[in-house]
């Protein structure tokens, strides 16, 4: 089986970009990734080499009245004609599109593919965005009962606090860390540091979660180009982030139907496959992107990924283990909290930031990073997608 690597990355600005349409965002990310492709390959590889497009997007239908993004994006970024498809799995749509591209190359069908994650969220009123995001949950038994996305995570947070003694302060530390990491990120929606007091004085959205526990509503797009080992070797490309593992799992759509609401089976199943099937040694992971749509999600995910014991996530964070100099530096460029969370773009943006840590050109570059892991979550642990990238 051929190996597959990431050869170029690029993204648009993330933020409330009223002057940018869905297609403008796609073009910005496209132009950025093609510029990086030019740099990385010294002009030898261009968009003419792209054989397929895989778009990650959750809700352009509901939020921008536009579906069929495979065609729209290939058209506007200038690769009209290629096979193109949109993948969706709520907030994990970006990583699922990447996974589709990865398997298509591995199958021998093509050598070079483009992945583009995108979401345009500010073309509809913000209360309608709430409704659109709840499409990720169970419409009949959650949305119609008045539950919101923040509400779902609030239920998780309160139960985690009860069972394990997790504190308000521990949750706040997550937001503080991610904002701190995002200060230098030119693409980030929010670049200011915040304090624990800021988090704890921010408006309650769904008790116990407050504004600064939540990732924002964001417009943005992110793109990577991946290629087969044969292509990479033939064209003598270096500076490649190799895909060492791609793993996905799902859980029941209704949060009320889960085995547990403080331990997410989809993540546990996905990480099991990473270790057992793809033989990744988790001790080698030097950096991680962990889906922090809400502070509590990052905490629970760190436990489910096995970086600490179940129930000990709060302590782990308190001890500074997720900081840039901690045991497992997490969301080193700001996470969803600071960079923003254009739903379909996030999974691809995470892979860009891991790639940069592997290549050595991250804005918060760590030393001696050989492998990095990205966890992209759709819904409330409903779909978990893990990718591990490495130097070789």
């Amino acid at each position, binding site marked *: 089986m051929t190996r597959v690597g990431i050869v170029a990355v690029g993204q648009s600005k993330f933020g409330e970009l009223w002057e940018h349409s869905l297609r403008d965002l796609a073009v910005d990310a496209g132009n950025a990734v093609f510029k990086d492709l030019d740099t990385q390959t010294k002009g030898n590889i261009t968009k003419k080499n792209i054989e397929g497009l895989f778009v990650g997007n959750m809700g352009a239908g509901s939020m921008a009245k536009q579906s069929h993004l495979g065609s729209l994006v290939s058209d506007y970024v200038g690769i009209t004609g290629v096979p193109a498809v949109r993948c969706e799995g709520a907030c994990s749509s970006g990583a699922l599109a990447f996974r589709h591209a990865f398997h298509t190359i591995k199958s021998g069908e093509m050598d070079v593919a483009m992945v583009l994650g995108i979401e345009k969220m500010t073309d509809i009123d913000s*209360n*309608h965005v*709430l*409704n659109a995001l*709840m499409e990720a949950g169970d419409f*009949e*038994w*959650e*949305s*119609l*009962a*008045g*539950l*919101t996305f*923040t*509400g779902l995570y*609030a*239920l*998780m947070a*309160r*139960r985690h*606090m*009860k069972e394990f003694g997790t504190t*308000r302060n521990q949750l706040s530390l997550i937001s503080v860390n991610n904002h701190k990491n995002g200060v230098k990120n030119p693409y980030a929606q929010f670049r200011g540091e915040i304090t624990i007091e800021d988090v704890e004085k921010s*408006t*309650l*959205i*769904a*008790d*116990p*979660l407050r504004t600064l526990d939540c990732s924002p509503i964001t417009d943005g797009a992110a793109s990577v180009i991946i290629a087969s080992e044969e292509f990479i070797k033939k064209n003598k490309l270096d500076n490649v982030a190799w895909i060492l593992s791609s793993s996905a799992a799902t859980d*029941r759509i209704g*949060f*009320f*139907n889960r085995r547990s*609401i403080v331990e997410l089976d989809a993540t546990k199943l996905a990480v099991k496959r990473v270790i057992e099937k793809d033989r990744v040694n988790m001790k080698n992971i030097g950096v991680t992107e962990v889906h922090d749509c809400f502070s509590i999600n990052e905490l629970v995910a760190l436990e489910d990924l096995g970086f600490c014991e179940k129930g000990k996530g709060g302590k782990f964070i308190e001890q500074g283990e997720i900081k840039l100099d901690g045991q497992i530096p997490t969301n080193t460029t700001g996470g969803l909290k600071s960079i923003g969370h254009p739903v379909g773009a996030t999974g691809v943006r995470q892979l860009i930031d891991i790639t940069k840590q592997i290549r050595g050109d991250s804005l918060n570059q760590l030393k001696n990073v050989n492998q990095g892991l990205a966890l992209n979550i759709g819904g409330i642990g409903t779909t978990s997608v893990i990718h591990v990238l490495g130097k070789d």
Partner: protein
Amino acid sequence: MLSVPVFWRMNKEKYKMIGKKCLDCGLVIFPNRKNCPSCDSQKLEEFGLSGKGKIYSDTIIRVAPDGFEAPYITALIKLEEGPMIVGEITGVDIEDVEKNPQGLVDKEVSITFRKIMLNENGLRVYGLKFLLE
């Protein structure tokens, strides 16, 4: 806009709390399914639930989706027959609840029927809510 059948389809479940029981493994199923989620059997019979249960976790929704009016309390309720369900807790003073960091966890509740929301046509949609015992 959502059409009438959406609400009508869930009539039996939402207004009468009629679920199913698996004839093969005994599992009580609510909301309804055609296949047993435990043993995959399709031999299921109708089964009425008591509507009593205990709060497993809860939150105060302060920013509501279209059709709902915040603030209100929404909880995960473990029904006494086994299944969990999401429902609004009504008839309590939110100012009392918000003072308690544990919320209403472990409190016993029973079912009632109330207006849930206004749909896109401005019509009232009724459904199940829960009262503290």
